[in-house]
């Protein structure tokens, strides 16, 4: 090694003199002691760790799916979709739960999107920052972390008792809307934030008002992000049992709701009901219900992906 510039010279390197076909790498600056072997080792350990984490998570998921599938597949038939629940496992079906969830879903979507996206637009685009909006922001972040059972109590107090809506689909949908509005607000604000500012400036410079700018440029550009947030939040709401049980949703319903004021059951509640029966056959029915619920949620999520990819392609 040449002590001055750190290059390898042939005199001190017998391998080079002997004409070895693999010359040692030339180190130009001795201050850069590139510990390549250790860096590669660290990289491999890290890679192994995250791979293990992924495999572990997927492993549990597949185990769950497999055990549910093996228990539930035998009941999965057309009758399961068209029959009402019954005392006899053979005749029991999911019809009232599916209809209940559909009603809940439609109403919840309407309330939570109109209020959630509206609030996000106000906070992100139209309001000026002040103590009031800061306070709202903190409240929303806090509300997003409140356990769903608390919303159930709130719904029972306000919608069922105080507003006198009874144990209706409407009361259930309003409660679930309250539950997911904070999540929708946060997701929508992130989507609005990611719309580049030069789009707004372009519109303002043309003499547009805030509302015209938001309506024609900002909101359309934010739709994919908002839709993703809304659908994920909806999937969560449709999987909730606790707040609905607290509200007093029925567990045995042999009819389908025909108006927002009718009483109802929902898929998670029916599943909960079946699992709490002593007979093994009902446990298998619960698994079948879970398969249907999972299928429904999967369709929701695929929809989110399709919306995100399709939107904005048109000129």
């Amino acid at each position: 090694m040449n002590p001055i510039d750190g290059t390898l010279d042939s005199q001190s390197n017998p391998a080079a003199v002997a004409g070895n076909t693999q010359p040692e790498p030339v180190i130009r600056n001795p201050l850069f002691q590139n510990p390549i072997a250790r860096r590669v080792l660290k990289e491999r350990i890290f890679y192994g760790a995250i791979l293990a984490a992924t495999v572990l998570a997927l492993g549990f998921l597949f185990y769950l799916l497999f055990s549910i599938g093996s228990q539930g597949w035998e009941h999965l038939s057309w009758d399961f979709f068209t029959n009402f629940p019954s005392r006899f496992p053979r005749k029991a079906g999911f019809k009232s739960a599916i209809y209940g969830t559909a009603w809940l879903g439609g109403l919840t979507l309407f309330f939570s999107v109109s209020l959630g996206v509206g609030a996000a637009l106000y906070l992100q685009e139209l309001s000026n920052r002040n103590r009031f909006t800061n306070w709202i922001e903190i409240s929303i972040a806090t509300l997003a972390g409140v356990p769903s059972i608390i919303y159930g109590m709130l719904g029972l107090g306000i919608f069922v008792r105080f507003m006198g809506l009874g144990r209706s689909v409407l009361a259930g949908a309003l409660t679930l809307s309250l539950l997911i509005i904070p999540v929708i607000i946060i997701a929508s604000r992130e989507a609005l934030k990611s719309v580049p500012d030069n789009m707004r400036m372009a519109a303002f410079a043309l003499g547009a008002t805030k509302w015209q700018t938001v309506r024609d440029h900002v909101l359309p550009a934010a739709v994919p992000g908002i839709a993703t947030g809304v659908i994920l939040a909806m999937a969560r709401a449709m999987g909730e049992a606790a707040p609905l049980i607290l509200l007093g949703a029925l567990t045995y319903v042999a009819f389908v709701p025909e108006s927002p004021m009718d009483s109802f059951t929902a898929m998670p509640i029916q599943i909960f009901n079946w699992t709490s029966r002593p007979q093994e056959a009902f446990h298998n029915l619960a698994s079948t219900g879970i398969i249907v619920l999972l299928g429904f949620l999967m369709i929701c999520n695929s929809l989110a992906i399709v919306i995100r990819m399709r939107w904005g392609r048109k000129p």
Partner: protein
Amino acid sequence: MMTQKFTSPILEARNLNLYYGQKKVVKNLNMKIAKKTVTAMIGPSGCGKSTILRSFNRMNDFIDSFSHEGEILFEGSDIYHSKIDVTEFRRRIGMVFQKPNPFSSSIAKNITWGPKINGYKGDFNELIETSLRKASLWDEVKDKLNDSGLALSGGQQQRLCIARAVAMDPEVILMDEPCSALDPASTLAIEDLIHDLKEHYTIVIVTHNMQQAARVSEYTAFMYNGDLVEFGPTTKLFSTPDEKLTRDYIVGRFG
């Protein structure tokens, strides 16, 4: 130093101070912009030239910490007067930004959106053609008016943005370093366009490129550290400037 063009200026700053928070970025500016001229604003980064430009159509309103003292007169009336309708005078003072920012809609809609929201009652197809012709873009895009504005090249996008501004029939067009994101050929196209546009419009252009200022403008303002150091006919400012600071800057001694 000025001719009679300046007796009824279209834009005028009077004792104008501009602030970001506590920081004074433009100090006691007095400046007149004459009708149907091209005025260039030059100076090193951070000298306040873009801030002035953006205050001419009140785009600084969107910056929370911004505040001002003094007056900006547009056709003789103060644009910061509380009774003024901001959207109406922004229609009359168009703006072209540093980075081309067409809307993500079709070329045609890029042109028509502004007039539409401002209640334009004329023929939109005619407006699209004349605006694109004025921005020398018509021949390149006339067969694909329904394509996305974002599918155009950078230089074409910037000319689309100019066409969009022109469609509003403005009196003034403010340009904030309109060529800094463009290649030399597109830059030349925009400079030619500025030459054509000054027949109808008053143009104020902020630029980092002194050759560009010399090529396109009739008047040049040299800003330094928030002060208007020198303002006069471009030929004079670039050949025999009054101030030593101006001379040092234009020969490239700093900045």
